[in-house]
């Protein structure tokens, strides 16, 4: 039985394919269209899913869609009814999209030739359904994001193949939208740069007593002991305008919305820190309350706020939960997978038979396909004798402070590069962070890089939870780097001494694992810098063409693609400057 999950028309369109309850393919549309956070109907992602199994749309038995469009439309109408006449501009701007796309989901689905059943799953159920692919038989579940149909925050529990969301907070009160409003206030793009604010917060004052913006932000939100909350909507305009902070919020925070070209000051950093403190405080309250309600020791975290890896890393230490699980794409991109899994297990009542153990669910290219591409474009390359040769040579290049584009196997599912489409570098090189930020990724100087270590080495370098939580496999937890190692791996230590580590096991990705170990043999520190293989504002590379083009447009020294090594210097005739194309 094949089930296709689809999400689109809001954030990060994607498609996921299940065969007899097991995920066999999943990808975000942006990787194919090369438009970051592409929201359009995922034609190409669906095409990839079908091709990966050599099937057609006629072979699909059920489709699961990630939300109830009419409930969302109802909420939107309620916004306009409540905010009349202030919402006029927003109404004129947004209504046509509803009639052209958002309310015509079925037409889009029929257009691709599918004629069987379509199930519409509630948005937060599609998030919470990550429980169904978790290793837990029973678990508490919390889902926090911007907004679904009406719900912005929900909690409940999962048991076997059933999910129950018991309580909710409704729009316009939303932690995700609070985070986005401050992101907009700090001059960054909404629904894209929230993670930058998380990174920026480490440069600010993280002391609640001395950071003046902490108390100010607390005026904006009323939080109860059980973690439930409401925002003071005088500080926001997102419920009736296509903007987020109000003038009242600007005066509270002591200045206008930062223009993108303005320098970041300590005030901006302190505001980011205050926001992080407030969000962490509320999440801890919600999660502690959830434990009291469910008495489960397992926790599933879902929704876009679960991408806040700084907060995630503190949950097990500050709550009674013993285990935590987050799928590789807890945001809206991941809901196609959740919707498909929910259809199979809960709606159709099938037993669970799958645990998502790695994120390698995307397109793969054989050595033959890669060679054809290289030959056709007259690209000079070197062929490795075998994988041992590949690992040895690549590890030596990284040790020699070369920057490597690493393109191997199936592309990752979710926003993080996890060793299939990664840029790798030497964490011991103190100049690596500046080099990667300025010349390769063309991104803000304050942004840190993530380390990857083999599972069994994590405890040696990081103050992790013990036992190591599974979301570290998906780079979703931030932990302090142990003090004695901070000076030895300067390029992966953030200003507050933390690192957003990825752990890898041999079973998940043996080539990547062997490379880290081999680098450890040479450097005595089995750890690499792992950052996504893209330039700022572009989706992560998907095809050999994307990878080669990215290398030639940046200062990546070598591309290790399949069994081939390509040197930028040897192909310098194809070089171009990607800097002016870098977007937010």
């Amino acid at each position, binding site marked *: 039985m094949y089930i296709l999950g689809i999400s689109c028309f809001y954030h990060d369109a994607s498609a996921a394919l299940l065969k007899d309850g097991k995920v066999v393919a999943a990808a975000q549309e942006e990787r194919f269209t090369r438009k970051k956070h592409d929201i359009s109907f995922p034609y190409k992602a669906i095409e990839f899913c079908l091709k990966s199994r050599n099937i057609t749309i006629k072979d699909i038995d059920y489709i699961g869609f990630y939300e109830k469009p009419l409930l969302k439309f109802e909420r939107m109408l309620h916004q306009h009814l409540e905010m009349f006449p202030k919402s006029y501009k927003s109404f004129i701007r947004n209504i046509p999209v509803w009639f052209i796309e958002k309310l015509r989901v079925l037409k889009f689905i029929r257009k691709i030739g599918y004629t069987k059943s*379509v199930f519409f799953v509630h948005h937060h159920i599609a998030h919470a359904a990550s429980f169904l692919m978790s290793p837990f038989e029973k678990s508490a579940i919390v889902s926090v994001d911007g907004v679904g149909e009406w719900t912005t925050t929900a909690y409940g529990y999962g048991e076997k193949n059933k999910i129950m969301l018991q309580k909710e907070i409704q729009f316009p009160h939303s932690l995700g939208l609070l985070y986005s409003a401050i992101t907009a206030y700090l001059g960054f793009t909404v629904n894209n740069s929230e993670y930058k604010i998380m990174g920026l917060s480490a440069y600010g004052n993280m002391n609640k007593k001395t950071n003046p913006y902490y108390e100010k932000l607390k005026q904006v939100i009323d939080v109860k002991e059980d973690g439930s909350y409401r925002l003071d909507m005088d500080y926001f305009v997102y419920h009736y305008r296509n903007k987020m902070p109000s003038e009242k919020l600007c005066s509270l925070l002591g200045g206008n919305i930062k223009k993108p070209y303005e320098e970041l000051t300590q005030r901006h950093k302190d505001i980011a820190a205050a926001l992080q403190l407030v969000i962490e405080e509320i999440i801890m309250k919600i999660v502690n309350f959830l434990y009291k309600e469910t008495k489960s020791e397992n926790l599933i975290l879902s929704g876009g706020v679960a991408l806040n890896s700084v907060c995630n890393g503190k949950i097990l230490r500050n709550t009674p939960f013993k285990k935590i699980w987050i799928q590789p794409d807890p945001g809206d991109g991941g809901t196609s997978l959740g919707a498909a899994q929910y259809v199979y297990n809960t709606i159709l009542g099938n037993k669970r038979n799958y645990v998502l153990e790695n994120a390698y669910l995307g397109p793969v290219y054989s050595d033959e396909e890669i060679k054809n591409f290289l030959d056709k474009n007259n690209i000079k390359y070197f062929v490795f004798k075998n994988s041992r040769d590949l690992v040895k040579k690549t590890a030596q290049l990284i040790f020699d402070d070369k920057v490597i584009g690493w393109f191997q196997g199936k592309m990752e599912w979710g926003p993080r590069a996890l060793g299939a489409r990664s840029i790798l570098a030497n964490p011991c090189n103190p100049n690596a962070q500046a080099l990667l930020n300025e010349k390769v990724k063309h991104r803000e100087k304050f942004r840190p890089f993530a380390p990857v270590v083999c599972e069994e080495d994590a405890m040696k370098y990081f103050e992790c939870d013990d036992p190591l939580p599974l979301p570290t496999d998906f780079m979703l937890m931030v932990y302090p780097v142990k003090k004695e190692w901070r000076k030895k791996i300067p390029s992966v230590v953030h200003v507050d001494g933390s690192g957003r580590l990825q752990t890898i096991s041999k079973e998940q990705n043996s080539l990547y694992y062997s490379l880290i170990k081999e680098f450890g043999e040479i450097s005595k520190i089995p750890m690499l810098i792992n950052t996504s293989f893209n330039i700022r504002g572009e989706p992560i590379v998907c095809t050999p063409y994307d990878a080669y083009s990215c290398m030639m447009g940046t200062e990546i020294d070598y591309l290790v693609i399949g069994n081939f090594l390509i040197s930028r210097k040897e192909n310098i005739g194809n070089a171009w400057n990607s800097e002016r194309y870098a977007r937010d």
Partner: protein
Amino acid sequence: MKWKEFFNGIKKGQKAFGEDIAQIVNLIVLSVVYIIGIGITSLIAKIVGKHFLELNMDKNKKSYWEELQLGIGKKEEYYRQF
């Protein structure tokens, strides 16, 4: 060749003109819908004290959690878009 370019140019111009007209018609129709449909309903609702969004904080409330009970539905409910 020149004639082909000429007619292509005319076609493009017609398309752009058509799009501009469509935008103006859209604006007029949507404004009427907003003022008549949304506006009148909203005014009546305000008179009778009906709220469509809960905008206010309530310091006296013990909790803001609301009942949801999502996940018990029958299979038929998932065919619906609401």
